[in-house]
């Protein structure tokens, strides 16, 4: 009880970024890979270079104003030189805005100059504080030193934040691109295609009667599947047709090992789902439910409109059942999905598509059937839409 305010206070201070409080410098650190990426950023533009030099010249002029000529000349040159050093350091900060470099730059420039200045002041305080133009020189020197120090600091800070933001945006852009590519190329599995072609090649060579129907099913499957992903939504009936073709191909290949039943209620056939979801579930059931069984298995696809509203699609098999990891699907996290390519990629893609189309109103789950095997279920709670409700 006593500890609670203390813990709150500690929590509050833990959130404070002390680097910013004490003006220590840039806060983001980048890995070598990130630096490599950051090198793709454009360099300093000519406009900025010219503007910076003009500013330095102007400042040198202002610094020398109203001083006796020989001293003015000295001040002008000194300020100009300091300004050019500052530009050089800033350019370095622009490219590599790190705390380490900032501190190093200060260590080599501002600190020695400040020490010299301080020594002069300490050795002859009377002269610097009392004599009119010496006094003027002191004030101008401090001001210029401050301006240049802050300029370097600001460049480092701004550039560091800019780079962090840029990396973040870049990562998001890449994620979006990858997601789009993965969604569009997820479906037709080369493994399926080449295995089918292997059967086909043999049956053609030996003039087996099974070649012609297999080729026809495969062609229909490809025709139905390739344009599938161009559309945001597809009717259950249309996709069931692609599923039937797929199952025909698999049945030809596996012989008696695959049996299937499609049971699509007429009112459910017109309901719409994101393309590829049914096909993915059926492919999974064949791969993990039917093929691992020595004696093969049976697969059922059912689609109906439940009494409580919405749409329900089920894919049932009589295989070994889902693994424990698939029973409790993790919360949908598109960013995490892209980070680690998971084994259940097809399943995760389907969840993502459902989420894109229906938000929280759709659910995909896997469970054990009491009679053995796996039940994959898609349940859309709202009545199926005419168009996408989310982008």
């Amino acid at each position, binding site marked *: 009880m006593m500890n609670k305010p203390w813990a709150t206070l500690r929590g509050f201070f833990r959130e404070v970024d002390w680097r910013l409080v004490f003006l220590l410098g840039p806060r983001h650190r980048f890995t070598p890979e990130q630096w490599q990426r950051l090198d793709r950023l454009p360099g300093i533009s000519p406009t900025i270079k010219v503007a910076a030099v003009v500013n330095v010249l102007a400042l040198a002029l202002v610094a020398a104003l109203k001083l006796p000529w020989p001293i003015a000349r000295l001040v002008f040159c000194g300020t100009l030189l300091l300004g050019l050093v500052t530009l050089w350091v800033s350019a370095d900060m622009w490219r590599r805005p790190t705390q380490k470099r900032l501190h190093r730059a200060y260590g080599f420039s501002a600190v020695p100059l400040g020490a010299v200045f301080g020594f002069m002041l300490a050795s002859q305080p009377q002269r610097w504080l009392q004599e009119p133009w010496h006094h003027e020189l002191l004030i101008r020197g401090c001001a210029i030193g401050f301006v240049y120090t802050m300029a370097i600091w600001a460049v480092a800070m701004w550039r560091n934040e800019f780079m962090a933001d840029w990396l973040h945006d870049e990562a998001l852009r890449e994620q979006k691109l990858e997601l789009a590519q993965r969604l569009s190329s997820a479906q037709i*599995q*080369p*493994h399926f295609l*080449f295995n089918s*072609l*292997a059967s086909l*090649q043999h049956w053609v*060579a030996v003039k087996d009667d099974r070649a012609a129907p297999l080729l026809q099913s495969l062609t229909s499957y490809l025709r139905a599947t390739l344009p599938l992903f161009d559309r945001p939504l597809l009717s259950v009936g249309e996709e069931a047709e692609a599923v039937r073709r797929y199952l025909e191909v698999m049945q030809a*290949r596996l012989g008696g090992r695959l049996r299937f039943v499609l049971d699509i209620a007429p009112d459910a056939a017109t309901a719409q789902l994101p393309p590829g979801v049914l096909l993915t579930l059926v492919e999974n059931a064949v791969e993990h439910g039917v093929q*691992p069984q020595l004696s093969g298995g049976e697969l059922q696809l059912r689609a109906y409109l439940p009494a409580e509203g919405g749409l329900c699609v089920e894919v049932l098999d009589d295989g070994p059942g889902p693994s424990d990891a698939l029973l409790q699907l993790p919360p949908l996290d598109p960013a995490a999905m892209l980070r680690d390519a998971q084994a259940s990629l097809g399943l995760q893609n389907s969840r993502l598509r459902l989420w894109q189309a229906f938000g929280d109103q759709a659910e995909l789950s896997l469970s054990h059937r009491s009679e053995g095997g796996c039940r994959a279920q898609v349940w859309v709670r709202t009545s199926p839409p005419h168009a996408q409700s989310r982008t």
Partner: protein
Amino acid sequence: MNIAKSAITALIADDEEGPREQLRAALQRLWPELQIAAASEHGVDAWDDFLAHEPQVCFLDIRMPGLNGIEVARRMAATASPPQVVFVTAFGDHALSAFDAGAVDYVMKPVDDARLGQAIERLKARLQKDGGSGPDLNALLKQLLPAVAAPKPKPIQASLGREIKLIAPEDVIFFESDNRYTRVVFDGGDALIRTPLKELLTTLDTELFWQVHRSVLVNSRHIASAVRVDENSMHITLKGREEKLPVSRQFQGLFKGQ
């Protein structure tokens, strides 16, 4: 070895008829003297057929029910006469990238004659050299095969008259093939079950149950000793039991007698 005289025998394993027969036809065309001893329909059969025929060359599909191709190859590599293995895979098989190292040979489905011809040339060269497998195939395959979770041991159901007896696998002393049945000998009796021995192999803990013969699977905790009878034959005795079980040549390496 006696390879020079007898013809070279081969085993083909693929769970799909099309690719299996395509490979068989291609092999007959390109390597007519090769005798195809068996064409297995899944991994369990492939292992059993290997024990029955002891072929020198095996063409294994990777994705097969029962035991996958890599598991079968691993078991083969541990026997007394490991065969030359060529994997037959379809595009998209995860293990493919590892094969590019050249340590394990593979051909892609659908098999094309040129690529198969290369694999055959390499096989012939290796068979002529020593007949043994070159690199440590077992260690290599171990890397390829992701750790498979140990199967949950299910009790064995055996009907004794009207009663169905549930036997915990660890209580079984040994299994023995008996025609179409498998004889289960456990602490306190024996029974016949319909599950073939070769299928039991895939569901039991291989650390505990050792296959010592094509038709014998024994609980290693009950083995008392292994006795060498002569150059080629060996048998094991069991703790507190009279039976002697044969150890076939393939599995005599299990008992090294350091």
